[in-house]
């Protein structure tokens, strides 16, 4: 009986209350808890870092392209040009 009353007094989201529902939703959205979610978040973080932070480190010239060098394999000209480009990105 007492346990039942204690359970009734426990704070929690009231069904239908949108604020409580949202709080409940946030609690349940523990995406990082699942293996797939962890892998997905890790991949997205890596791709975002590669795409947005990469150009700050490795500068390329997107306007002037040297077609003669466009098909060179990675590292042909030097170890500092991994995608087969010149240092200017051509």
């Amino acid at each position, binding site marked *: 009986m007492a346990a039942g009353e204690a359970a009734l007094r426990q704070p929690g989201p009231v069904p239908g209350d949108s604020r409580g529902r949202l709080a409940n939703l946030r609690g349940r959205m523990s995406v990082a808890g699942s293996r*797939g979610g962890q892998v997905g978040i890790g991949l997205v973080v890596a791709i975002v870092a590669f795409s947005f932070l990469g150009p700050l480190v490795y500068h390329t010239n997107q306007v002037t392209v040297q077609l003669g060098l466009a098909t060179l394999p990675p590292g042909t000209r030097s170890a500092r040009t991994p995608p087969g480009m010149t240092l200017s990105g051509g």
Partner: protein
Amino acid sequence: MLGGQSSLELGLAVSVATAIVGTVYGAIAGYLGGFVDALMMRVVDTFLAIPSLVFLLILVNLFTPNMWTIIALLTMLSWLATSRLVRGEVLTLRTREYVQAARVMGSGSTRIVRRHLVPNAAGVIAVNATFTIADAILLYAALSFLGLGLPPPHADWGTMLSNGLNYLFDGYWWIVYPPAVMLILTVVAFNLIGDAVRDSLDVRLRRR
């Protein structure tokens, strides 16, 4: 690197726009019901009946491609599924006691939709938005692959794949594989996140 920027920005923008448009449309249709719902859903059915890539190719030829027009065009194709999902959820939610209680207490339709129905459908919207990012990135890559993406000097994975395909059979794998791998990894990553969000919201799949 720069190809990833435009794909990710576009995918995220389309997902947000799709969630907003689809939610508003689906919530209105689901809440009002009756003739209005039937009419609004027939409009959605009509657009869903048209193959998306064909529809997109026609639209892209009508507008000058830039970032905003591509986002608008992809949103025009993506909001349909979201609106159907939200409408279904709202149809279920609007018969609940708390919605009836809100109505009895004098809440207007706008307030009921905004404060009670849409927040309770947030799970469905969040899951769908995550999958929409992956779909939008793939659709944009397909568009770029066909040469209808953003013009140079914009770079994107679809255009890189298209350009590299000419060299692939000559053994220049390093031109094609990097954008293809990035595209696959991005789509897989967003699908994994979408699955995880869906599982975390599904009571039956949650660990006790």
